[in-house]
């Protein structure tokens, strides 16, 4: 299994290959179609696809008329995890925002450390600790 993981890591460490995976999540595509938006040869894209194939992330159809590349079903689950990772990034950002908001008065102005306020004792205590 760890050998398989090594292949998956190596495959996804490259930004072009991550982009290919993201695009294949929308729809199957031929290597030629995949190459279109890039400033690189079809051969170069084909090499990237081979790396993804060896890692077990994609398969190529056996249809000789139209050899499409298809994302393995389990990679869609991985995409769901990517979204979860993105969500966690957002949550971490908003927890920092929570801390910033706690320093503002209700009208949005920063609480002045020099002016004694008659807010809740909890806030006064927090202010004392901070100063």
């Amino acid at each position, binding site marked *: 299994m760890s050998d398989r993981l090594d292949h998956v890591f190596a495959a996804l460490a490259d930004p072009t290959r*991550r982009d290919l995976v993201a695009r294949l999540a929308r729809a199957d595509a031929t290597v030629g179609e995949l190459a279109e938006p890039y400033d690189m040869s079809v051969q170069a894209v084909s090499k990237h696809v081979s790396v993804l194939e060896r890692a077990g992330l994609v398969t190529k159809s056996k249809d000789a008329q139209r050899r499409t590349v298809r994302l393995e079903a389990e990679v869609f689950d991985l995409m769901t995890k*990517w979204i979860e990772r993105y969500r966690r990034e*957002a949550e*971490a950002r908003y927890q920092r925002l929570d801390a910033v908001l706690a320093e*503002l008065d209700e009208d949005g102005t920063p609480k002045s450390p020099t002016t004694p306020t008659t807010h809740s004792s909890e806030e006064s205590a927090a202010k004392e600790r901070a100063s």
Partner: protein
Amino acid sequence: MTTTTIREATIEADQTVPAIHITRDFRATPAQLFRAHTDKDLFTRWVGPNGMATEVLRWDPRNGGEWRYVARRDGEEYTFRGCFHTVREDTIVQTFTFEGMPDAVALETLTFVDLGGGYTRLHAMSLCDSFEGRDAWLASGMEVGVNEGYAKLDRLLADEATEDGTDES
């Protein structure tokens, strides 16, 4: 009351348009949220990706104004810029571009909805210019994983392998 916890951010990839929706409640007034989004120094303190230092290079939060900031970590630099289209107490509409891909522009609409009782709901919609662009953006979370080292990704994939243990579909 001291045990009141706020639900974590929720995220949704829109099925009909290439948008990402993030919703999060805050124990704050809309005015506080507005200030934290428009005051340069406050914004700098919370916006950056984890472990990155943010420096604002341009900041003019008014209708038609512009913004630009750089996030740095270990010699890496990522610069972002955009225009403030609408800046209002309850709504900020702005464009968002990573300068490494200057032609890909997202339209962001942030709304601050007063829930009463000192709570406000932030809804952030990022509308990308294609589904591919949107999905690549979401997938960029993977890049974070790669930068953090493989440890977390390792666990994630290991879980995946356990769940799909039968592997004969």
